[in-house]
């Protein structure tokens, strides 16, 4: 048999032919698939848009239009077939510019609102194609569900007492109106919420009556504050104005919050701590500092923005598409409330920014959890009732030292819990490190040997 000899030229020409054939068939196949690819891309883009829109909806719209677009009170429902089939242009116009004579403000940046054209387009596509069930879940998970008693009721005794005051009639009317129309955003007793500023405040009273009246009548562009001119008559506006200016005369508790915070006792705190360590600490960290699996809870902004009811909802229902399960299936309401109380107990000492502890346990054990001491809320700082026996213990102060404070502003916000360094290594780190060292040493050794030989 003669040995087969292929010339390099033949290989080159063959390679060229194969490559050309690949390009031609590749483009042909791609073109054949292009219509379905475009369809898939459109569906994927719609999903992305709807996802963004749901978050926007939760932050901006749910408070008036309801978590599932069902409408609240006089605010219209959005989940209607009429809107789904109507002209998207007109919906865009209403969202962008607002609806004169209603509580609907203008939302577009051009008209002084907070939303960009792109975001408004996303909202329109939510209104026309949206899955309102999913939207409701999103609103609940973000802890932004509108308070169920959207309208509060003023304390009748205080109301009667006020009416007896000189010129107290207008004040009492104002309080009733406030409880009906304003409490959802401006909060119990005018203390303010995350949605709107406090009204029971000296800086408000320092404003001129004309300025306040203008705000009441015309609203504030670019905020949720609508103009109430059309919804209320002159007398009612005058009564509300009276309330703004004379709130300091109203006793506390006249307009109770629609949301009652969860009662915390020493027993409930102990139970909450136990349940937290057993069920939550693995992912959220022993003191709520979070981990790579779950976000931190022990952050001031998160705790301040998330009322007890929202925490309870999140724990009960879980968060879809994340690893947060619905604990409502496994725990009873009292247990969940105990966990909420325990999480709430961090609020006074919660750090401003998340300080996830990188608990890097020995690699043969996985992550470890350190013990933590629960803390009862100290009086006044939070919403909850606090027993006198509570002994505040600092949490999170002695976790570890800052590391990685490299030069050039590379200060790491991460706190690394101290473990012997050899326990923090995992097989992949060791393999990578050894690999680099081995390769580099090999190169150096080969080079040195060659150089020595050349030198001889």
């Amino acid at each position: 048999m003669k040995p087969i000899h292929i010339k390099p030229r033949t290989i080159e020409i063959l390679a060229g032919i194969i490559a050309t054939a690949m390009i031609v068939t590749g483009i042909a196949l791609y073109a054949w698939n292009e219509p379905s690819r475009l369809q898939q891309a459109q569906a994927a883009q719609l999903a992305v848009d709807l996802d963004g829109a749901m978050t926007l909806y939760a932050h901006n719209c749910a408070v008036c239009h309801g978590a599932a677009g069902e409408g609240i009170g006089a605010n219209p429902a959005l989940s209607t077939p009429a809107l789904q089939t109507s002209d998207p242009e007109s919906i865009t116009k209403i969202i962008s510019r607002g609806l004169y004579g209603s509580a609907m403000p203008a939302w577009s940046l051009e008209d002084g609102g907070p939303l960009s054209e792109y975001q408004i387009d996303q909202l329109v596509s939510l209104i026309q194609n949206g899955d309102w069930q999913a939207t409701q879940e999103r609103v609940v998970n973000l802890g932004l569900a509108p308070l169920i008693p959207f309208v509060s009721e003023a304390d009748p005794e205080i109301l009667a007492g006020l009416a007896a005051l000189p010129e107290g009639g207008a004040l009492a009317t104002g309080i009733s109106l406030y409880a009906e129309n304003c409490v959802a955003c401006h909060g119990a007793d005018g203390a303010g919420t995350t949605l709107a500023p406090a009204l029971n405040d000296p800086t408000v009273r320092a404003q001129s009556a004309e300025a306040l009246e203008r705000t009441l009548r015309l609203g504030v562009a670019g905020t949720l504050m609508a103009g109430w001119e059309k919804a209320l008559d002159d007398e009612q506006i005058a009564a509300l104005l009276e309330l703004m200016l004379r709130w300091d005369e109203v006793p506390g508790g006249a307009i109770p919050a629609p949301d009652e915070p969860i009662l915390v006792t020493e027993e409930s705190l102990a139970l909450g701590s136990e349940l937290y360590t057993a069920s939550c600490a693995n992912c959220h960290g022993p003191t709520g500092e979070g981990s790579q699996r779950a976000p931190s809870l022990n952050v001031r902004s998160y705790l301040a923005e998330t009322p007890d009811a929202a925490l309870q909802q999140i724990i009960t229902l879980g968060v879809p598409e994340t690893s947060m399960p619905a604990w409502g299936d496994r725990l009873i309401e009292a247990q969940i409330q105990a966990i909420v109380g325990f999480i709430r107990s961090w609020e006074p000492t919660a750090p401003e920014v998340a300080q996830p502890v990188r608990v890097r346990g020995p690699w043969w054990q996985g992550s470890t959890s350190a013990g933590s001491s629960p803390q009862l809320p100290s009086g006044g700082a939070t919403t909850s009732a606090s027993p006198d026996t509570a002994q505040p213990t600092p949490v999170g102060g002695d976790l570890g030292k800052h590391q990685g404070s490299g030069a050039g502003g590379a200060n790491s916000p991460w706190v690394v819990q101290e473990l012997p360094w050899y326990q923090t290594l995992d097989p992949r780190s060791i393999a990578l490190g050894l690999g680099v060292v081995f390769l580099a040493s090999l190169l150096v050794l080969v080079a040195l040997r060659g150089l020595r030989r050349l030198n001889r």
Partner: protein
Amino acid sequence: MTEESNSGNDSPLNRMRRRLTPPEFPTDDRSRMRMVVDSLILHLHPTKVPRSTLRWTYTWGLGGLSALLVMLLALTGVFLQMNYTPSPPQAYLDVLALRTDTWFGDLLRNLHHWSANLLIVTSVLHLLRVFFTGAHRPPREVNWLLGIGMLLLVVGGNFTGYLLPWDQLAYWAITVGTSILTYIPVIGQPLSGLLLGGPEVGAPTLLTFYSLHISFIPLGILALMSYHFWRVRKDGGLTIPKSASGREEPAPERVTTIPHLVRREVVWAAAWLAILFLWAMLIPAPLEGIADPAVSPNPAKAPWYFLGIQELLLHFHPLVGAVIIPTLGLGALALMPFYDIHTENVGVYFRSYRGRYISLLAVGGALLLTPLWVLLDEYVLDWAAWLPNWPTLLSNGAIPLAIVLLGIFALDEILRRSFRVNTEERVLALFIFLFTALVVLTIIGIFFRGPGMALYWPWEMPALH
């Protein structure tokens, strides 16, 4: 014009066929000459080339591949331009529409994206090949400088193109990338203002970057590329490889350009086009949500080819890390052919046997020392805290720079004393050491830096919120 084509009884179809098909090979010298002059290929290439320069493993076809990528970028770029408006937020919507509504829109964008990134890699590899074979030395200095100029234009083209999709990735990478500019003393701020058209990346920036991306940069690359090609022939073609012992072949065997060189070029181009098309069909170019100046990702990283410099910023005062070190490096690179002028071993990879071993030593040393130094500086050294009363330009800039430079000089001195290395081999070792260090720093920047620019293992990288 021949008499034949003027004859009236010929059909237009026949005339067209005759004009477009290759003529019979002429027999007289004058017509042969004419044919050579008329050929586009023989305008670019000489009629004969040394056989040894055709070896795949000598040039790796990197220059040709870069030229192919430039052509592909120009072509796909024009089509992308037809579907694009350089103003926010329409720019982002247009890029989305390429994906969802335009036939072949996604393929074009992916091709453009991946070719642009590959072009940076091939340009740098081409530079390395030229340096390793000594092809930058006299008389080819001008082409070396042209090459560096084109490399800068390629990086500029990639950087300006990075912003155009107007997504989060683009917005923040450009914000970080242009902030490096502001560290240049005196002219940094005005330069950044000129480029951005305002205090931060916004609508004017997009328009500026778009204009640069479609006019000056491609025109500049085209002009320099033509000059580069012309100079290759002017400087005597490719360097002719010699055996590593430095012995020159008495008379290099020459073969005709057509088909020997052209066949290889066509095959190489076809192979890379096939790879690029497959790549673009299978791996989509990244696209995140619309740019949002209010929400910055943590960490915010510059485009990948600047992460070596961003990594330097973590270890040095900005003036040193972002200005002095890159300027010194680029300056040294540009001066290379005027310093390294011995031409005996041109065409030999790594100069000599000793050169190869020294190159290995330099790569190994840089692989060992660079990560070590990064770890040391990250966790142990903290000059700014140790010398609180010193200006940070000294404590964080001059001192670490002096230590690093002293370390490099010490290594060089050890090399010089232990082995009989000559100057050009030391330059080679230094170049390879610094280049490897840059590659290691870039890899650390890309894969090992997480939130707060802290060090992480790639598999422990926390997900972005």
